[in-house]
C-alpha cells in the first residue's frame, strides 16, 4: 500500500484491515488501555509472537499507531505519544520457553511478569538479579524496553547486561532475533541491546533470554542515621570502598527516609547479601564504620527498599532520575531535595531519584545543568503530560542515528510514535 492509499482510507476501513489480520478472540475492550487520558480505538492481546508480528504489519499498512504495553507501570516515561490507535497488550505471551537451572539460563516470552518469573526461579534457589521500579509487577518486555533499574544496579548488572538474546517483532511483520541462549556470545550485532531502553521505537520484544544468578543465602539491611547528608555521603563512600558483600547502598534525605518507614533524618541504607559469613562480616564492618563517626547501625523494621522502589515508580507523581558519579551522589541528593523533592541516591550506579507531586520544566532544566556540570544527566521518569511536553524527558542524546535507525525499522512511525521525539 502506498502513502496515498493510506490517506484515502477511512478509520473504519483501517480498523477493519487490522481486525482481519489478527484472530478475533484476541480483541479486548479499549477502555482499560488509556494513556494520558487518551483511549485507543482498539486493543488486542495476541497469544503468539507471530500474531504480534502480523498485527504490527497490518497496522503499519493501515497507518495505525501501535502502543505495546505489559504491566503498564512506565507509560508516562518519555514524551507524550502523538497517537494511540492500537493498544497491544503483551500478556498473552507469558510462557517460560526454556529454563535450565544447572546452566543458570532462562528464555521467556515478554509478557510474563517478573514476580511470576522470580517464583519459578526461586524454586530452584535462583533469581533474576534486578529490582526495577515500582515492584516485580513489571512485564519482562516492559522491563527491557524501559531499562529501568533500582538500588541493586552497580552492585549487580542492569537488565541489558543480563540479557543474552531476544526476539523482536518488527513493523515489517518479521520476527528478528539476536544474541543466543549461552552466557558468552559475540556473534553479530547485539540488537537486543539496541531494543533495551529503546521504549519500543524499533520493534516489540516478544522473547528474551537471560543469565540468572543463585539467590544469596543471607540478606540483611542496616540503616545508619547521620547528622547531615554530607556526613551520610562520606560514610556511604567509605562503605562502597570497604569490599562488602553488598547489594544496595544508598543515601536518603530526611523526607525520603521518612517515606521509607525510617526516622526522618539523613540516612545511609545498606543491604548486605551473600553467604552468611560474608553478611556477618560485612555487618561488622558497617557497624565499625558507623561507630567511627559516633553513629550506630540498626536493622530497620518494615520494608524500606520496597517503599523506595514504589516511590521511584510512582506514576501519580513527578519522578526524576539524575545520574552522577559516586562522589557527587550526596551532593546531588541535597540539590534534588532543595528543588522540592523527596530524594535519595544509590552510590554504585550514581542514580539519584527525586519524587515530588509536581515539578516545573524550569526546575528539571536546573537539575539538568547541575548534573551536566558533574558529567551526568537527568531523565524524567514520570510526570504530567504537560511537563513531559514542556521539558525534554531525556536531555541531550544522539538523535541523528536514532532517526536513521527509525527509518530502517519503522519508517511510517507505527510504533510508539512521539515518545522519543517528533515522529520517533
Amino acid at each position: 500500500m502506498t502513502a496515498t492509499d493510506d490517506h484515502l482510507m477511512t478509520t473504519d476501513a483501517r480498523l477493519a484491515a487490522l481486525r482481519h489480520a489478527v484472530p478475533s478472540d484476541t480483541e479486548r475492550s479499549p477502555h482499560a488501555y488509556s494513556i494520558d487520558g487518551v483511549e485507543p480505538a482498539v486493543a488486542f492481546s495476541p497469544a503468539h509472537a507471530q500474531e504480534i508480528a502480523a498485527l504490527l504489519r497490518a497496522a503499519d499498512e493501515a497507518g495505525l499507531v501501535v502502543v505495546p504495553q505489559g504491566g503498564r507501570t512506565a507509560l508516562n516515561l518519555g514524551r507524550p505519544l502523538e497517537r494511540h490507535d492500537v493498544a497491544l497488550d503483551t500478556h498473552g505471551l507469558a510462557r517460560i520457553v526454556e529454563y535450565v537451572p544447572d546452566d543458570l539460563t532462562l528464555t521467556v516470552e515478554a509478557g510474563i511478569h517478573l514476580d511470576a518469573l522470580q517464583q519459578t526461579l526461586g524454586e530452584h534457589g535462583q533469581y533474576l538479579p534486578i529490582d526495577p521500579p515500582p515492584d516485580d509487577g513489571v512485564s519482562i518486555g516492559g522491563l527491557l524496553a524501559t531499562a529501568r533499574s533500582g538500588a541493586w544496579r552497580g552492585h549487580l548488572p542492569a537488565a541489558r547486561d543480563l540479557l543474552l538474546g531476544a526476539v523482536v517483532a518488527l513493523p515489517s511483520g518479521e520476527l528478528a532475533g539476536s544474541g543466543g541462549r549461552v552466557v558468552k556470545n559475540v556473534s553479530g550485532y547485539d540488537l537486543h541491546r539496541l531494543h533495551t531502553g529503546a521504549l519500543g521505537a524499533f520493534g516489540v520484544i516478544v522473547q528474551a533470554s537471560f543469565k540468572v544468578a543463585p539467590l544469596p543465602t543471607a540478606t540483611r539491611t542496616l540503616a545508619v542515621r547521620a547528622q547531615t547528608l554530607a556526613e551520610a555521603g562520606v560514610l556511604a563512600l567509605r562503605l562502597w570502598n570497604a569490599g562488602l558483600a553488598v547489594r544496595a547502598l544508598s543515601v536518603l534525605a530526611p523526607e525520603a527516609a521518612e517515606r521509607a518507614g525510617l526516622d526522618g533524618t539523613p540516612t545511609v541504607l545498606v543491604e548486605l547479601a551473600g553467604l552468611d559469613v560474608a553478611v556477618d562480616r560485612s555487618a561488622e564492618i558497617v557497624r565499625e564504620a558507623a561507630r567511627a563517626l559516633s553513629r550506630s547501625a540498626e536493622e530497620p523494621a518494615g520494608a524500606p527498599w520496597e517503599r523506595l522502589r514504589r516511590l521511584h515508580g510512582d506514576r501519580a507523581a513527578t519522578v526524576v532520575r539524575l545520574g552522577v558519579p559516586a562522589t557527587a551522589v550526596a551532593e546531588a541528593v541535597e540539590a534534588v531535595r532543595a528543588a522540592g523533592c523527596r530524594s535519595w541516591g544509590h552510590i554504585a550506579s550514581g542514580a539519584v531519584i527525586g519524587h515530588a507531586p509536581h515539578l516545573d520544566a524550569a526546575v528539571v532544566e536546573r537539575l539538568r545543568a547541575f548534573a551536566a556540570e558533574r558529567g551526568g544527566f537527568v531523565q524524567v521518569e514520570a510526570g504530567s503530560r504537560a511537563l513531559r511536553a514542556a521539558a525534554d524527558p531525556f536531555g541531550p542524546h544522539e538523535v541523528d542515528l536514532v532517526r536513521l535507525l527509525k527509518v530502517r525499522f519503522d519508517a511510517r512511525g507505527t510504533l510508539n510514535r512521539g515518545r522519543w521525539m517528533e515522529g520517533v
Partner: protein
Amino acid sequence: MLHSRHMTRPEMPTNARAAAIEALERAVGAAHVLHAPEDLIVYEYDATIDRALPDAVVFPATAEEVAAVVRAANAHDLPVVPRGSGTGLSGGAVPVKGGVVVVLTRMNRIVEVDAANRIAVVEPGVINLALQETLAPLGLTWAPDPSSQRICTIGGNVANNSGGPHTLAHGSTVNHVLGLEVVLADGRIVHLGGRVADAPGVDLRGLVVGSEGTLGIVTQATLRLVPTPRAVRTMLAIFDTIDAACEAVSAIIRGGVIPVALEMLDQEIIRAVEPRIHAGFPLDAGAVLLIEIEGLAEAVAVEAEAVIEACRASGAREVRSADTQSERDRLWEGRKSGIGAIGAVTPAFYILDGVVPRTLLPVVMRRILARSAEYGFRCANIFHAGDGNLHPNILFDPQESGAIQRVLDLGGEIMRICVDAGGSITGEHGIGLEKRSYMEWIFTPADLAAMADVRSAFDDAGRFNPCKVLPGGHGCATGHADEVARHLATPGVYI
C-alpha cells in the same frame, strides 16, 4: 598459526591512488601515511589466516584526524579498516577490499583516571596491560583480560567485545564501557553513553561495542573500573580425564558458587606449557582446572570448600591451593602462556572459539575430540570452561598435502557441533572475516536483514570494514569457509 591465504582484487588506477594518498597526507601529515608496497605488507594480516594489501596505512593522532581520514576516504571511495595491535583472531583487521587501514596506536594516552569514581578515560591505542599497570597501585582494575593483554589495545577490546578468564564473574567488555567517542562513516564525531551508567537515549554505546569496526571508529572510551578484591584464592584441580574435569565444571556451577575464573587446560596444553613455565601442572594429568574465587576472606574460605568438594566428587585426583602471590602468578602465567606454548610443539595450529551451554561441556568435548581423532589431528584445549567458551586448537603440519583444507573442514565441523548443542560460533574472538559464512547457522534471514539494516543506517555506502561480520556483501569474495558453511548447513536455528 596457519599459513597465509592471499586475497586478490583489482588494482586501483595509479592517478586515483596518488590523489587519494595526497588527501590522506593532508589529513594526518605525510609522515603518518604509508603507501610503499614494502611498508604495506606489514598491515595485510592480523593473527589469522587471510591476507590482503591495503592501499594506504594512516596513523592519526586525534579524533579530528580520524574524521579527516574518513572524509578523505569517502571522497576517493576507499574502504576504511580500523586496526589496533593486530592481534585479532577472526580476520577483522584484514583489508579484504583494500583501502585505508587506520592504525590507532598513536592514540595511546590514558586521558584520565578518576579513582574515587572508578572511571578511566582512554584513547583506543592504550595497551590493555599498560592500563592495568596504571590502575593496580590505585587498587583498581579494568575487568577484560584477554590472553593477548600484553599487546592488545583497548580499542580492539571494545571493537570485539573482548572477554578473558575473568569474564565469568565480570562480563565481557560491553559491561565495562560507560561511554564512547566515535567517528561515524560520514566523518561526524559523536558521543554515545557517558560518564555515568544508564544515560538517557537509545543505547547506541551497547550496539557499537562488539561491532568490529563496521559501525564506527572509537577514538575515546570511558571505562568502568572494578576494585581489586580483598581476598583471592586460586586453586588448581587435577583430573585424570577431560571428561571428569568437564563434570566438575558443571558441578561447581550447579552448586551455586560462581568463581571469578574457571579455566581448563588439557594434557596437550599442559605438556606444552609446563616445561617452559613450570607452573606446577602435572605432566600426567588428563586435564587441570584453574579456579579463582574472590571476595571477603571469610566467604572465600567457604566457597573454596564448596569448589574443592565439587571437584573431588567429580573425581579430582588432587586440588591444590596457591598460598602466595608468586604461586598464584605462576599458575596464571601457565594459563596465559598456553596458546604461545602450543606454537613450540607443532609447526602450525588453528585456534577456534565456540560456546556451548555449560551442562553440555562433557558431551561436546567428547564429540570434538572424537572428530579430531577421526581427522587424524591432535587437538589441544585451553579455555574458559566456566562460561562454556571453548578454544580447541588443531595442531598440524602445513607442509603435509591438503592439511590446511582438512583443518578448515574440521574447524567448520567443530563450530557445527557447538551450534547443534544450542551454542554460539564465537564467545570472544568475533565473527570478522573468518566466521561470517557460519552466521546463517545461528541466525535466520530476517535476523540478518535486521542486522544489515543497522549497518546501513550507520554506513549506507558500506565503506567501514567491508566484508566483515555479516555474510554476503557486494564484491566480497567467497572462500573456503563459505564452502564449508554450505556443506555443513542444516536447518535448526537456535533462537
